[in-house]
């Protein structure tokens, strides 16, 4: 599973809680690929995914959160996807 966090440097909203979410993903999903994408460097890809607000999060190329989720929301989403994949 690939988790992509779209952010912009210097944005407090983007940094808040990021490490907790990363740790959650690494704990729950054994094969998780965690990517942090600076929107300035990855603008075309961000537009392709449908990112309109920052920070935003995509899972396996699909925009899932248009702002940073709470750890609970994130856990629920990851769990649901893992069940679906079985």
């Amino acid at each position, binding site marked *: 599973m690939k988790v992509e966090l779209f952010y912009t440097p*210097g*944005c*407090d909203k983007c940094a808040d809680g990021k490490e907790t979410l990363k740790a959650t993903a690494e704990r729950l999903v054994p094969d998780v690929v965690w990517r942090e994408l600076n929107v300035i460097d990855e*603008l075309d890809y961000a*537009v392709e995914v449908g990112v309109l607000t*920052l920070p935003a999060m995509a899972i396996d190329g699909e925009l899932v959160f248009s702002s940073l989720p709470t750890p609970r929301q994130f856990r629920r989403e990851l769990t649901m996807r893992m069940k679906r994949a079985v």
Partner: protein
Amino acid sequence: MTLTIGKIASAAQVSTDTLRYYEREGLIGPTSKSRGGYRLYDRDAVRRVRFIKQAQNCGFTLTEIRVLLDLRAGEAACCGDVRRFSLEKKLQLEAKIKAMRTMSKALDHLIAACSDESRPLDDCPILAAFER
């Protein structure tokens, strides 16, 4: 020093109708009234109107400009907040450009399919494509 709406319009190079519209939208407001009942504005109004015009040139809507003006006036905000807001605007603009490119390509296909201009309307492939 206070200015009438006409003076503000002239200094900021906009019409008085535009200023009244900005006023209805809550973006500018008079600071006092003359004895004759005319609305009077301070010098900052000119700066504010110029700010609105420049932001509009970058695609911001009046609602978004109100957010920018609030950020400018607020002590809690920093340049990073304005930057993030501007980046979000850019993402919206790029998404629109992408959608318009797709529309333009769709039209290319339709125009190419309609190579014979002498066909009757009933056989027009463009109209037929829209009927599908």
